[in-house]
């Protein structure tokens, strides 16, 4: 029987088995940002160690940068301190740092691929759970904690337990107004928010093969919301075409050589999987969350579940808690729920194709008067490309604020926050209690086009109706 990409790449990067039974794994690419990494440099210093391979680590700023006024020093002294700590550490240790003025700054999971740093067959680690995004390129990419960031800095390796591999076979054509975001929300809904624990998800099948790299990134990004620390797609011509010519992509002879390696690590036809799940993409409708975990999702045409519908007491308790927090009523349609804020951005849906798709739909429409609408490009590169096409104007004309790049209201560690119990239609990835900066703020996850539809109607709406898709 053949091997999966996961097993091939793991075996190539395995240094040895440690006495605990875990493997020591070589990390090919290490990405860091200002929130989870400065502390690791402090730990390194306490141990009297230096960065082992500084050329394999790259730093950016994303979580706490303001998106309205980037003038330094930031108004928030704590944020300024974190940026400063990271900048100093990188300079001291010889780590490349994509600072605000570099022209390359942006959300870590957007700039890695954009710069050609992310490549097939790599092991990629970052102190951020959405590192799974990079799996779109056929890499084993996963989030780590700060102490592990220290481990990578000090040794370029980690102590890890090998995962099992679940193949998720997605077949069929997407219906109109249905996007990669809806596919991953459906997968999480079906398999549960902890269904992926202990697994790497390999996404395949005709739907995924037909996806662009940006769609694959959206899909892999939210693997972690399904409990899977790793999610990936086998590399193919779409992957190679995307990488070619990017700043850190191999060139000339090295390109040919790289292609050979990239092809060799794709899963074999007859690869062995620990589990296989099949999804019919054509049956999926635009999907929205109604609760406080990404698994609490329904099609926009469905009714919000009621506690009585649940099979057992623990599920009933979860539904009750979610409804109470979201201030929704079980058994009522989700469509028509009033929103206060619309957010398009994040490492899930803050890429050029996302803004293009929304711009194409909102021309001639206006954001409802009571809605605050934010469009936040994921990186300086995305911002430049979008502005070059005039997308910023389309968004502004429709009533969106067009902001500077960063994580923004996905996590609200910068000034972009919900106020009180505002409800936000959001293209981000987490609807946890308090996620968007207000302890009582409410988040409804959906695709960017669905966010735009909600912004226009002022309430949760079916984008297919609003835009005649």
């Amino acid at each position, binding site marked *: 029987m053949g091997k999966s990409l996961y097993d091939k790449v793991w075996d190539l990067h395995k*240094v040895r088995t440690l006495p*605990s039974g*875990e493997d*020591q794994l*070589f990390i090919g690419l290490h990405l860091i940002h200002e929130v989870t990494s400065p502390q690791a440099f402090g730990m390194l210093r306490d141990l009297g160690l230096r960065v082992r391979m500084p050329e*394999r680590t790259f730093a950016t700023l994303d979580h706490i940068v303001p998106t309205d006024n980037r003038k330094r020093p930031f108004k928030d002294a704590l944020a300024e301190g974190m940026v400063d700590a990271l900048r100093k550490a990188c300079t001291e240790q010889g780590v490349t740092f994509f600072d605000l003025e570099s022209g390359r700054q942006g959300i870590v999971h957007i700039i890695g691929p954009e710069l050609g740093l992310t490549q097939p067959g790599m092991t990629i680690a970052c102190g951020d759970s959405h590192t799974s995004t990079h799996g779109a390129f056929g890499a084993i990419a996963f989030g780590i904690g700060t102490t592990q960031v220290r481990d990578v800095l*000090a040794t370029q390796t980690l102590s890890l337990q090998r995962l099992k591999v679940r193949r998720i076979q997605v077949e069929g054509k997407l219906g109109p107004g249905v996007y990669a975001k809806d596919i991953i929300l459906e997968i999480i809904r079906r398999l549960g928010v902890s269904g992926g624990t202990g697994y790497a998800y390999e996404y395949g099948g005709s739907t995924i093969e037909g996806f662009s790299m940006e769609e694959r990134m959206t899909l892999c990004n939210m693997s972690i919301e399904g409990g899977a620390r790793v999610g990936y797609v086998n590399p193919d011509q779409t992957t190679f075409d995307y990488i070619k010519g990017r700043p850190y992509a191999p060139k000339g002879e090295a390109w040919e050589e790289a292609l050979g390696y990239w092809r060799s690590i794709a899963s074999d036809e007859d690869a062995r999987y620990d589990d296989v799940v099949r999804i019919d993409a054509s049956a999926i409708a635009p999907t929205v969350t109604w609760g406080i975990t990404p698994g609490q999702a329904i099609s926009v045409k469905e009714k919000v579940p009621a506690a009585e519908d649940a099979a057992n007491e*623990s599920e009933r308790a979860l539904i009750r808690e979610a409804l109470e927090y979201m201030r929704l009523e079980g058994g009522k349609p989700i469509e028509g729920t009033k929103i206060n804020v619309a957010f398009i951005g994040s490492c899930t849906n803050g890429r050029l194709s996302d803004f293009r798709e929304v711009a194409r739909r909102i021309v001639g429409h206006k954001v409802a008067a009571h809605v605050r609408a934010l469009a936040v490009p994921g990186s300086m590169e995305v911002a430049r490309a979008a502005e070059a096409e005039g997308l910023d104007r389309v968004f502004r004309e429709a009533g969106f604020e067009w902001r500077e790049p960063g994580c923004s209201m996905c996590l609200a560690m910068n000034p972009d926050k919900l106020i009180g119990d505002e409800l936000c239609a959001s293209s981000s990835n987490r609807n*946890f209690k308090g996620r968007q*900066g207000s302890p009582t703020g409410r988040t409804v996850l959906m695709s960017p086009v669905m966010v735009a539809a909600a912004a226009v109607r002022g309430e949760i709406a079916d984008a297919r109706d609003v835009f005649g898709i």
Partner: protein
Amino acid sequence: MALDLIQSVTGRAVHVPGDDIDTDRIIPARFLKCVTFDGIGEHLFRDVRFDERGEKREHPLNDPRFAGAAILIADRNFGCGSSREHAPQSISKAGFKAVIAESFAEIFFGNSTTLGIPCVSVGPEHRAALVARVSADPTTLVTIDLQEQVVRAGGDLAVPFTIKPGARESLLRGTWDPIAQLLEGADEVQKVAARLPYVQRAAAQ
């Protein structure tokens, strides 16, 4: 670097109910603005323990009967969401030495082990039995015995638990912080780097 061998944890326990408790709830993002983890224990479960005016809400961690508990009991899929190590750091800095739950999210589990905080999984009935016991008598002493893989409470209750074998081994051997071992493998790391085409390519440039 000599680490403690963690063979068992004993202390009083407190139950924080709810499935899928995410790391944003354990430690809200606004408390991540720190360049060290000092003082982060104060903010553990901040937004569910206090309302917007800073008044205490009803929460097990605000209940004086459970003050000083060393073991946190949770339900299913505890610690899901972000990779922030601030979550187990805040649990540890708030005085907890171990977590018992039905199951844990992957990254949270790994982060906790690396800090020497055992996260052990028990079945739903056993979890309920433990909760019933400590709720009825908050002074009950609970012991997590990593050698025998059992949780004991109050002398007569004993329930088995599971934990990833690698994590158990490293806690028992005092290698839960793997840095010393990872540093030892330096020569072999070099060999792996040398056989990876993309690493060689970068080195050649």
